[in-house]
């Protein structure tokens, strides 16, 4: 055919070739390596990324320009994924239409061909679903202390990413964390965490909705999945001399897990203090001299350890505040007024999930169909004459 010699045909053939597929696989491997080497926005805080950028200024410049601080949302990655979809699509069409001269591929049975066709349609579906979510979806994280209300505004999220084509307008809804219930085994390891949420929008209201890890809830087009939990002590700081209230707030302490040893601590940014203050909570404790040991993860007799540290991270002063007690640091009186749980949630708008979800099932089914003959032959017992029964004597 004359048409097969022109430049367009050559481009089509190249776009559906295995050589391009190999190049794309290698590109994916390199991009994944990049994501392992360069700190990702999804895993590291902006402070950590800035610190890393200061130490690796050259690499940071290129990373910033190419969007490699979020590799899997970067333009190079999207190009690779789109090329993959094009490659699979063209390759499928060429093989099924018989236009491609494949040396070894023979359509032995109908099942294999159907499997091949469905599998490649499913792969395109998977890529399309992923692309819809990346382009139109929203993904945020929120932290709520018991009793706190979250209003759905971009600036209220702790982390927030949205697709280039997603709606800029925030949906109007509110979420309130009313309660956190945790069941511990041996007072140490949490085995069940239930958070109760109240949802409210202009058209809908749902109160007392229980969410657990692995059991998400959908409201207003968003899926709410429960993530981390921790403690939020309420800290009140007063200046007794000036009779001034300096702070009255819940502070969500970070939860650090080192095996079974969980620690609840964070540093408290106080603009009126020269030194930094680090808070460590012991939900339940025993005191042996000056040494405090945590005895349980359940809030029984909680205490807060205050540490004031200078620029060189050396300890200036420290003190232990019992629950509903107070302690003086410098000119200020610190009060441990209340203790509640906080819980973090991932709030996701995933518009591609139906396409993606159906496609992965279709892919699995068609893959089994495609290789059904090989699978059946694998489970048939070999005759004694086969040399695979052992090494030839």
């Amino acid at each position: 055919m004359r048409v097969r010699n022109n430049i367009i045909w050559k481009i089509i053939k190249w776009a559906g070739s295995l050589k391009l597929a190999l190049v794309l696989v290698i590109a994916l491997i390199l991009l994944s390596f990049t994501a392992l080497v360069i700190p990702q926005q999804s895993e590291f805080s902006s402070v950590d990324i800035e610190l890393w950028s200061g130490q690796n200024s050259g690499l940071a410049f290129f990373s910033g320009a190419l969007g490699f601080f979020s590799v899997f949302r970067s333009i190079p990655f999207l190009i690779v994924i789109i090329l993959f979809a094009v490659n699979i699509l063209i390759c499928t069409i060429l093989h099924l239409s018989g236009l491609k001269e494949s040396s070894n591929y023979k359509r032995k049975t109908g099942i294999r061909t159907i499997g091949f066709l469905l599998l490649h349609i499913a792969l395109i579906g998977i890529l399309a679903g992923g692309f819809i979510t990346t382009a139109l979806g929203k993904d945020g994280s929120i932290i709520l202390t018991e009793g706190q209300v979250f209003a759905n505004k971009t600036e209220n999220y702790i982390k927030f990413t949205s697709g280039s084509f997603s709606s800029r307008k925030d949906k109007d809804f509110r979420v309130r964390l009313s309660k956190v219930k945790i069941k511990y085994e041996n007072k140490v390891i949490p085995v069940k965490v239930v958070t109760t949420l109240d949802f409210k929008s202009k058209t809908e209201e749902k109160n007392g909705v229980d969410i657990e890890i692995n059991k998400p809830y959908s409201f207003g087009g968003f899926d709410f999945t429960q993530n981390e939990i921790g403690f939020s002590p309420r800290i009140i700081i007063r200046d007794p001399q000036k009779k001034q209230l300096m702070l009255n707030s819940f502070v969500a302490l970070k939860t650090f897990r080192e095996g079974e040893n969980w620690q609840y601590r964070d540093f408290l940014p106080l603009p009126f203090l020269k030194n930094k203050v680090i808070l460590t909570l012991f939900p339940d404790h025993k005191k042996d001299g000056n040494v405090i040991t945590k005895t349980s993860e359940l809030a029984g007799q909680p205490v807060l350890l205050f540490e004031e540290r200078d620029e060189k991270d050396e300890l200036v002063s420290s003190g232990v505040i019992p629950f509903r007690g107070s302690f003086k640091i410098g000119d200020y009186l610190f009060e441990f007024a209340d203790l509640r749980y906080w819980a973090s949630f991932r709030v996701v708008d995933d518009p591609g999930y139906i396409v993606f979800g159906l496609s992965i099932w279709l892919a699995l089914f068609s893959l089994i169909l495609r290789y059904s003959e090989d699978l059946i032959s694998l489970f048939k017992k070999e005759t004694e004459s086969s040399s695979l029964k052992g090494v030839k004597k």
Partner: protein
Amino acid sequence: MKNAEIFLFWGTIFLYALTFILHMIGFNWRKIKLESISKWILKFGFILHTATGIIHWISSKHPPVTDTYELNLTGVWFMILIFILFEYLGKAGYMIGLVVVPLSFLALGYGYLSGVYIKPMGPAFQSPWLIVHVIFAWLAFGSYAISTGAAIFLLLKKKKKASETFKKLPSADELDLTEYRFIVLGFINHAIMIVSGAIWAKKLWGHYWNWDPLETWSLIAFLFYAFYLHARSFLNWKMKRSAWLAVAGLIILAISFWGVGLFGPTIHPGP
């Protein structure tokens, strides 16, 4: 209970190591009897391995699929199971055990070094998809390991100065077919592992796919094996070329199983 488990665990390690040594001697010096003794020792080791898993399951009150020790214990069990099964069916030559068995006790040792703990199942693991995900991950690894074993022997046989021992191996065609069939089996198990993981991830993290390093490496390995299958079907890459691909595939998969944690933080605990 823990002492019994430790005793059985070391018994398993010892028997797998003994299997390997006897098999190696039998294979190298053509001692057929030693080879058949090693087969029985492998089966006995597998029984001890099963008992170790059951005791750990009873002690922890959940299937051993949550931490590094448990994942390696369960995973290696599935690896040995499919090797014994397919060796019985005549689809995997017993000499492939020279690759599968040392891999198994290395994985068991790695798991043991991470620490043996009896602890309850955390909320994140309380999903039926966990079992599916873990079982198929290891069935995939086991299948790929058998395939790599066949590929290694194929490469040894095809060497210009191959020794008499390797010349007496099953024919290159049969080794090539074994390698291909087990990659197909591994590929399907790998696909089930990824699909079950994606469904679980949707419930746990809100997205089917989170581009976590471990997820990404697993996908890279999957794409690599997809390339293997395509290269075989459409480019006629067989024998030595496909054997090298099979060996490289297992290395990529091993990175996704054990190596990813070394690179940085991951939300996905691996073996």
